[in-house]
């Protein structure tokens, strides 16, 4: 069997006495979306940060194309960073308020010392390149999240870790961003690790779903199976709690 894009094995992360992530194993293929769903405090954001190596896992393995990331130092990670990038929940705190759109999207390019086409990136995420000189506070929530996505794409990653990327957005904007993510995945063959608490949102983007509860994955499977015929009690409770479903 070919090596998946991302393989996470028995990942653990502790804060003091408690385990935020307690032995999590999964894989994500190229062009595939694996959604991790769970409620706040279940450890899904910590998991995202461990995978994106913004936090150091306590133990376990994070392999990107077979290459171990979990144990690498900040310095060793740097040249590998372009291959996996993060999109954040709240576009109002994930963009430096003092910078222009141009500066924000160019930052990863500058850090990695590579050339890139900022206007092209802005167009790709559906932003008018004429907005390059604006500051984040001059943009709408949806436009800001597009800037965050353009920044994540700047280094042409293979994997995007998306931490609640549409949670802070309005319904109509949510749909636009979901569609943008679907299109980008198709065009670029991206693998998505999509972290969310919202089962309805997840159903629109995920090929597979993993349900996280108290630091562990309680159920993993194809989206329609997990949502349609949940096998774990906790998953059933989650699905039943979705209003209007």
């Amino acid at each position: 069997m070919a090596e998946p894009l991302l393989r996470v094995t028995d990942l653990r992360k502790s804060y003091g006495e408690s385990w935020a992530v307690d032995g999590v194993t999964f894989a994500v293929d190229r062009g595939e979306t694996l959604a991790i769903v769970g409620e706040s405090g279940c450890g899904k954001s910590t998991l995202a940060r461990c995978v994106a190596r913004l936090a150091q896992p306590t133990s376990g393995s994070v392999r990107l194309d077979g290459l171990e990331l979990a144990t690498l130092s900040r310095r060793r990670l740097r040249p590998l960073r372009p291959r996996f990038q993060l999109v954040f929940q709240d576009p109002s705190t994930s963009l430096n308020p003092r910078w222009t759109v141009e500066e924000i999207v160019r930052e990863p390019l500058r850090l990695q010392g590579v050339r890139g086409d900022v206007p092209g990136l802005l167009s790709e995420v559906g932003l008018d390149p004429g907005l390059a000189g604006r500051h984040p506070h001059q943009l709408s929530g949806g436009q800001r999240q597009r800037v965050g996505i353009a920044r994540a794409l700047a280094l042409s990653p293979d994997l995007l870790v998306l931490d609640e990327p549409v949670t802070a957005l309005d319904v109509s904007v949510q749909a636009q961003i979901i569609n943008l993510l679907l299109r980008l995945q198709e065009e670029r063959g991206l693998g998505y690790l999509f972290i969310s608490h919202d089962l309805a949102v997840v159903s629109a983007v995920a090929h597979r779903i993993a349900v996280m509860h108290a630091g562990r994955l309680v159920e993993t499977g194809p989206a329609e199976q997990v949502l349609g015929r949940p096998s774990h009690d906790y998953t059933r409770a989650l699905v039943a709690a979705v209003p209007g479903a």
Partner: protein
Amino acid sequence: MLEVKDLVVTAGGVRIVDGVSFEVRPGEVLGMVGESGSGKTMTMLAVAGLLPGPARITGGTAALYGTELTEARLERIRGRRIGFVFQDPATSLNPLMRVGAQIAEVLRIHGLGRTAARRRAVELLEQVGIGPERARVYPHELSGGMRQRIVIAMAIALRPALLIADEPTTALDVTVQEQIMRVLRAAQRETGAATVLVSHDLGLVSEAAHRIAVMYSGRLVETGTADEVLGAPRHPYSAALMRSRPRIGAGRGPLPVIPGHPPAPKSRPPGCAFHPRCPVALARCAQEVPPLAGGVACWAVQDG
């Protein structure tokens, strides 16, 4: 019963609420839905006399059982006849006061004696599903959902005629959301208060509201029963909004989107504010603001 007529709220020369009219009968829950900047929260803050900073009412009326809610009289009316539940329970509670005492304080301000207030506070706690032993804890010792229950208990303490819940579950987890909505609905039924549930979450509103009002760019574009508006929306904006929300069971794939984004009130286009994004816009839509007639503010629907 709450009657709002042609309400206009202006901030910095811009009409952020532009001629909104609606009614809420006793015991009824009105779901007020709209996206950020649609004016749904501002409308309710205006009704409650809680408009922030530069915003003020520059037109129209709001009456609660015939009593005009003018700003001068509100001070007295507010606490007693209008109850609030805001989005973030953490900021609605005094962190330095035991929760039981906070509820009792509301009652005492309005004339109840010490023992009576304490007894009633315990009753209220029970009503929102919190045991009397929790009366002596501080807000930070409670989870978000528990805190929101306390806020609900305070909101209904004086048996208000009007209950306003602004995004009451947005800050909470899904499974907790459901419980809080149950508590809120029970509290609302028990008090018989006319209730306005402000939310961006159509799913939530669909389960809790009898009637729904949809706002867009400071105006009301559609009202009707929950079944009508959510099941067969007539305004092109409501219809597009319903279609664009992801639903479990719809499967993976692109969602039907509304192109563009809602205009800020200061750059609201002439005529119907939705016309530049509307698939069925007529020439007239760009010139005249459609009135809310028969529950929908749309020339294409009214003329067609």
